[in-house]
């Protein structure tokens, strides 16, 4: 995340923070234009809903700007903002009426009676087959994520996309590191099955 901050910060962060603390509208717009894309993408992936993601990002910016006095600059401002939006998105998910979690079992690896892996016919895909158009990949990712149960999707996103550690992810999700590790592995395994099946349907 810090790398992303640096890539996205072609401005003087101290000056930006001073502008925000002084209520400068141009600083506010610069902040949103610079970091809003990544925050929106993260909120949308977690919430699986455009309108909720808009609300969540707006809320995150309002809280951040109101709390700008508390920003100490130890992490980059982008990392700080990102943490706020992820926390808010997870709070929204908790507040939603919980759906019963669908089982992932049919998407997990299969073993024979001796414990040896059963290789599904034609399942493996090769790297060139993943050379999809950018929009196509994005649409496919949205579809695959939507098919994972919330609890597994959240772990996958926080660990593999947002790059939080197992311990940080456990704290954010109010669970244990052991549960995070198990869910991450199952989510990745399910995603592998879903991706291979999507690519096979697409005819690659």
């Amino acid at each position, binding site marked *: 995340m810090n790398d992303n901050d640096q890539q996205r910060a072609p401005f003087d962060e101290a000056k930006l923070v001073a502008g925000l603390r002084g209520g400068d509208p141009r600083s506010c717009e610069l902040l949103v234009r610079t970091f809003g894309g990544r925050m929106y993408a993260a909120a949308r992936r977690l919430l699986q809903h455009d309108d909720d993601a808009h609300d969540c*990002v*707006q809320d995150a910016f309002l809280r951040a700007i109101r709390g700008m006095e508390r920003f100490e600059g130890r992490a980059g401002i982008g990392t700080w903002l990102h943490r706020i939006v992820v926390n808010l998105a997870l709070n929204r998910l908790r507040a939603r009426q919980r759906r019963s979690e669908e089982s992932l079992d049919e998407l997990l690896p299969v073993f024979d009676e001796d414990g040896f892996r059963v290789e599904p016919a034609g399942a*493996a895909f090769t790297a060139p087959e993943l050379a999809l158009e950018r929009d196509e990949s994005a649409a496919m990712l949205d579809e695959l994520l939507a098919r994972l149960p919330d609890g597994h999707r959240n772990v996958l996103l926080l660990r593999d996309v947002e790059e939080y550690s197992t311990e940080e992810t456990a704290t954010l999700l109010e669970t244990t590191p052991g549960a995070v590790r198990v869910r991450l592995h199952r989510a990745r395994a399910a995603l592998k099955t879903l991706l291979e099946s999507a690519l096979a349907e697409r005819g690659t």
Partner: protein
Amino acid sequence: MSLRRSMERWLVRHVMIGMRCQDIDPHLGDYLDGTLGTARRLHVRLHLVMCRACRQYLEGYLRGVEFVRGTARAQESHPPPASLVRRVVDAVERNQASPRAG
């Protein structure tokens, strides 16, 4: 079943006890993430040397992780929707005019 697969099975059954694919599978994620202890890491590595099915499986598993990561990164490089920028800037202005609102 190929001769190679038969030999893999024989080795796992009689020499590498407790290292069936099913025993190894739950540890593959931690193996990739580098968070396994030394003994368990060695177990997984030995199994992978012997078992082509698990090596292939792990390659696909890793490609799935890379697909998610790469696609998500590409999504993040998009600018925020213009409507979102306007909406946030307006909300911040309203909030600053009336600090209790929002």
